């Protein structure tokens, strides 16, 4: 008898929610299409938000809600379950179901799942900024500004990141994880060469000299002073750290010195050859575990992986590692670095938007951040307490400069939101490949970037 009552109520609640959800889809669909009338949008969304609040009240009063959360690497990621446990401890009526869409084709699968209007995901993880922009342009993501203002969320804790991910001046996601780029180094390599370790205050020039000092080109026992993974970020983006340029500017002459530095290093055997690395598919981690790589510029996501692999023996040759802040351009204060974020968004078709928003707030907020830090991952909201927590992690280098390196004064997104992000990326990737493969000279490559991106922006 009791069961029947509950199920009837549930059905009724679901119907209400579905109806409101459908209404909202219709109301918000045209929003992302350059309407440029925020006032109008607000008016449209107001009744929907009110109706939603009723549902939220229902949820908190104890009705069972199941949230479907789209993500990747369910079993390989250490923080999903703790985040869910942390949230459901306070909201016992909520069940969160993780749906793993796979890592390699995540954006393709997510985009397909969100096509049409029948998707039943409540929360979706957004992997990168081009992914965010395409989904926002598709109009399948719920604008969050209303809710942020309504709940009085302070965006300043994200140290400016949220300004870089606005699409048409609207925020569609809240970041919960932020990785900054640092310089990993293998202390054994430096000890062997009798060279001092890198520091938290190095110019690119000093970095280049250091890399050359520890390099050994003897065939059979090569030591590489530096290692650059084949991504364009590892070289091209060094240029945006002076704060004067962004990667969606349309002119790329500022990347020249960095390309020239790395190409010269490649020629002198300071780093491995791009063409070989690309075709051979050598993963940067595998390269670092060989024990003959001095310095590696990479994101802080590599920290937990590295610690784990040292424990299980694979990374033994790199067991004595440390990190320092990214090198900086002449005359710029140290601590500027690149960042990538992982964020949560709510689809316009979500059956339980308000419950979903509550969960998003939790994960991106300070409670979620504490849980993230406990698992050794860097949350989007960064402060000294959180950095201290990460540095306490078992296996993290004991030296002070490694701890200090976790603090970034400026974090520039690898790709800030731009309506044409993914198309710009295609051009930049291609020219990066041409330059590094020495198919084009640096100047030709940069000219092609200027021309290609200029054409895209001019459309």
């Amino acid at each position, binding site marked *: 008898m009791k069961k029947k009552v509950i199920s009837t109520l549930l059905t009724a609640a679901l119907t209400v929610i579905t109806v409101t959800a459908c209404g909202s889809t219709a109301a918000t669909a045209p929003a992302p299409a350059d309407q440029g009338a925020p006032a109008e949008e607000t008016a449209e969304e107001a009744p929907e938000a009110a109706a939603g609040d009723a549902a939220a009240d229902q949820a908190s009063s104890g009705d069972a809600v199941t949230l479907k959360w789209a993500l*990747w*690497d*369910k*079993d*390989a*990621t250490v923080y999903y379950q703790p985040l869910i446990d942390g949230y459901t401890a306070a909201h016992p009526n909520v069940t969160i179901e993780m*749906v*793993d*869409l*796979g*890592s*390699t*084709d995540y954006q*393709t*699968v997510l985009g*397909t*799942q969100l*096509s*049409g209007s*029948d998707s039943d995901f409540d929360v979706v993880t957004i*992997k990168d900024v081009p992914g965010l922009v395409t989904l926002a342009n598709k109009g399948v993501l719920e604008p969050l500004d209303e809710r942020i203002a309504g709940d009085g969320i302070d965006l300043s804790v994200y140290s400016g990141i949220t300004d870089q991910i606005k699409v048409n001046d609207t925020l569609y996601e809240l970041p919960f994880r932020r990785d900054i780029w640092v310089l990993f180094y293998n202390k054994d390599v430096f000890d062997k060469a009798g060279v001092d370790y890198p520091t938290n205050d190095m110019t690119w020039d000093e970095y280049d000299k250091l890399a050359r000092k520890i390099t050994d080109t003897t065939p059979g026992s090569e030591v590489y002073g530096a290692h650059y993974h084949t991504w364009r970020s590892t070289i091209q983006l060094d240029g945006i750290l002076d704060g004067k340029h962004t990667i969606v500017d349309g002119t790329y002459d500022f990347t020249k010195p960095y390309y020239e530095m790395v190409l010269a290093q490649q020629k002198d055997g300071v780093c491995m050859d791009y063409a*070989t690395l690309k075709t*051979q*598919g*050598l*993963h940067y*981690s*595998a390269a670092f*575990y*060989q024990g003959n790589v001095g310095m590696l510029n990479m994101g802080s*996501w*590599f920290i937990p*992986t590295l610690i784990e692999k040292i424990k299980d023996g*694979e*990374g033994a040759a790199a067991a004595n590692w440390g990190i320092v802040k990214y090198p900086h351009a002449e005359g710029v204060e140290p601590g500027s670095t690149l960042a990538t974020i992982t964020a949560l968004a709510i689809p316009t078709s979500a059956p339980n938007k308000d419950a979903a928003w509550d969960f998003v707030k939790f994960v991106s907020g300070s409670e979620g951040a504490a849980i993230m830090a406990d698992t050794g991952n860097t949350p989007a909201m960064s402060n000294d307490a959180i950095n201290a927590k990460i540095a306490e992690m078992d296996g993290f280098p004991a030296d002070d400069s490694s701890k200090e390196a976790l603090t970034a004064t400026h974090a520039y997104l690898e790709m800030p939101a731009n309506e044409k992000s993914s198309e710009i990326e295609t051009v930049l990737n291609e020219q990066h490949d041409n330059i590094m493969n020495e198919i084009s000279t640096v100047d030709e490559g940069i000219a092609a970037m200027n021309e290609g991106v200029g054409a895209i922006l001019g459309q």
Partner: protein
Amino acid sequence: MQSKKTNRLIAHIIIYILLFFLAVIMLVPFVWMITASLKLNKDIFVIPYQWLGFTPRWENYVDIWTRIPLAKYAVNTAKLTVIVTLLQILTSSFAAYAFAKLRFKGRNLLFLAYIATIAVPWQVYMVPQFIFMRKLGLADTHLAIIILQAFSAFGVFLMRQFYEEIPDSLCEAARIDGMSEYGIYAHIMLPLSKPALSTLCIFTFVNTWNDFLGPLIYLTTDSKKTLQIGIKMFISQYSAEYGLIMAASVISLIPVLIMFMLLQQYFVAGITTGAVKG
């Protein structure tokens, strides 16, 4: 007589030398897969590659079963593959009979339309197809994968071409004897097309077994996923465990190779000729 014998001997030697080289060229990746499946991830992409003399890491073959529910995935894949292959063979050989041996209005046009659709890349109609399937409530079901794979134009095309080789006179004779078209299909065409059926069976089996993108898009519940999705799970955002990938790939290859070896027996001259003579 003597020279003919020597000639044959020389021909045989040449054939075996050719075959030997062929086997080497074809088997290098297999040997690589097996050696890589016994290595630590970091040792796999090192140049020069170590073919021998490393300590094999048998744990890889244990880990693949515990790290992900590989056994469950294998069962799912096997189920899908068997159903799809059976349906494909049944419907394709049936339809192909009409295209090859019956005359009706619009035959060539319809056939051409069939073939032409093979040329449309799936990536293009994947999204509308998915939306449609979801409307029917088929998202996240094995039925969706079965439907997608079982009614392909490819099978019809393949079978039709083999039926073309079978002389029309056989069918005519049967018709005169009063046999129905269904009877001719079942009692004459099917027994005669064992090599073709084997071919279609092999191809459908391999394609369904190795299909990745279809199950990836449609199957979101963990317990419904397939082997190929499972193998890709060893590639995560920040690392790729090629040792495990290769171990799982070797395992997943075994049923396919067994299937091939069993079915290729039907590629033996004489099956059809005997019947034709009779």
